[in-house]
């Protein structure tokens, strides 16, 4: 378990536009044949980035200016579809450390939280302004600040929101709940007996 909480993420931004970007687009199902998640990074958004011959479709993730981007921005209902953790795993292995969107699919948001990737919500007009900055000054860092609940970029402040329980978990470094869950071993047993499971 990490000893320090996640309070700030600094990095270049990249804007992947679109509503309802589903988990099959984030990582197409044919890349899910694996017994570990280690090799998923290069397959991120594969069919959006490359055509059927493998030629680049000039996706923002492949633009020279956005190389090494660590904060991905998108639109509404990001990560809808499957519960497969392969989607946030692929983002993380690719190097994405935080996601900004108008809204998130619930399971995706939960999976990302467990992996330590904050999913923060920013209103549309602000995202449009931020998208312009990312486009015009791609080398400028964004700071996603979970303490102040804002993104700072090019000396401008963009307020954000996120699920409070996730925010607490990032700040307290217990976004991976397993150790906490295991501490309740006795109470788990009592519950299991009360419900007749054992």
């Amino acid at each position: 378990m990490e000893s320090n909480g996640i309070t700030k993420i600094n990095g270049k931004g990249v804007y992947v536009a679109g509503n309802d970007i589903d988990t099959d687009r984030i990582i197409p199902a044919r890349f899910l044949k694996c017994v570990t998640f280690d090799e998923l990074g290069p397959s991120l958004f594969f069919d959006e980035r490359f055509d059927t011959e493998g030629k680049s479709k000039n996706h923002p993730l492949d633009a020279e200016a956005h190389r090494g981007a660590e904060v991905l921005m998108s639109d509404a209902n990001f990560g809808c579809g499957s519960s497969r953790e392969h989607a946030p795993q692929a983002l993380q292995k690719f190097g994405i450390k935080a996601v900004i969107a108008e809204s998130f699919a619930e399971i995706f948001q939960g999976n990302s939280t467990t992996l330590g990737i904050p999913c923060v919500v920013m209103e549309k007009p602000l995202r449009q302004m931020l998208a312009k900055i990312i486009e015009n000054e791609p080398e400028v860092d964004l700071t996603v600040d979970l303490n102040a609940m804002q993104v700072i970029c090019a000396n401008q402040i963009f307020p954000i929101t996120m699920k409070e329980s996730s925010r607490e978990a990032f700040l307290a470094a217990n976004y991976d709940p397993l150790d906490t869950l295991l501490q309740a071993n006795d109470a788990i047993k009592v519950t299991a007996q009360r419900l007749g499971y054992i």
Partner: protein
Amino acid sequence: MESPVGKNLYQKVWDGHVVQKLDSGQYQIFIGLHLIHEVTSPQAFGMLRDKGLKVAYPSRTFATVDHIIPTDDQSRPLKDDMAEQMIRVLSDATIEHGIEFFPPESGSQGIVHIVGPELGLTQPGLTVCCGDSHTSTHGAFGCIALGIGTSQVRDVLASQTLAMDPLKVRRISVEGELAVGVTAKDVTLHIIRTLGVNGGVGYAYEYAGSTISAMTMEERMTVCNMSIEGGARCGYINPDQTTIDFLRGKERVPSGADFDAAAEKWLSYASDADATFDDEVVIQANEIRPTVTWGITPGQAISIEESTPDPELVEGLEKDLINDALGYMKIPANTPIKGTKIDVAFLGSCTNGRLSDFQAVAKLLPGHKVASGIKAIAVPGSEKVDAQARALGLHEIFEAAGFEWRKPGCSMCLAMNPDKLVGDEVCASSSNRNFIGRQGSSTGRTILMSPIMVAASAIEGKVADAREVFGLK
């Protein structure tokens, strides 16, 4: 003091399974039934190993293989090395940790969401989890049934619990009698079309009303299966006599007096008459027509009598979404969806791969042939479904009509096995997702519909109205 307000099923099941409230504000919830498969679970065992942990309650987890299993040649080792390795890793883990595994040729293998109910593992009042979003299927029995990620699969294996935020509950009442040719699949597509693909975010859906009450368990499973496509984390239906009758005699439920006691308990989980809900929606059954998708999300759906949308009538992002979807689908705007040429017809999946789905189609097929040039496959959802269908001779009816009758698995629903679209083929599909590239080709196109609509479309070689093709009145 007794609470003056009744509880809904979600609240009853949730309250019963709370272990404790966590500092983060979330709750630790005990999981009654955990189902695992080869795509999302092997990695979780690796995570356990890294932490030196064991499976806490191995008798509450059951495993099968479904996503990657071929539906033609299942002989081992599988031709696909990685698929073979995924099965091996899962199989070895179940042996190491003492978990019951239903492998191919065990007689009980199949799509995990078909296996649980048909064995009677899925019972009212349970919390059910699986590393697969269509776990919502099990809600048909009155369960809180949730799709989870692999780290959560790890959490359940290690502790039999999950850290969760409680959901709000929306009651969706469907009232009245469905018209001829309108099925449970049309009901669920209609609900998603009405409420949107993210309309359910933050909610559990309770499906209620006279239309739902009149449904068989298999129809109810179809409805609950697609809750996730409407953005809801789960969906459920209150247990009633239909539920009890379905479970009686199933392999993993008690028998005799124990069954009667269990049945009484199961019925008690149903929402109280004075239960309250965070939101309520009423849908009239007579407004529902056979429904098909035209775009790249399950919410982009219209009735078979309608035309594709006209992007010129809307503004902004909505216009872009329609244009993008029509562009990908290579379908013109403002044009009847009926008559759209198809290449492939797929019957199966956890949405519509149960015995009654094949029975409904087999009743209509005699005297009809799949159009020439159309690849049509019928894939039973489990070995049990396959055996029951064969015993009734259904496979022969399908084969006589020009369908291939395959071995059980997820098949072309998600193309992690050899069943895939090629190039920009169009598939009339009884599955649950029409996402870009979903069926295995990055340019492949999916049109979701009910099993009888898939059959009608296969016969016509284009999107067709089952009511016309089969003369349903």
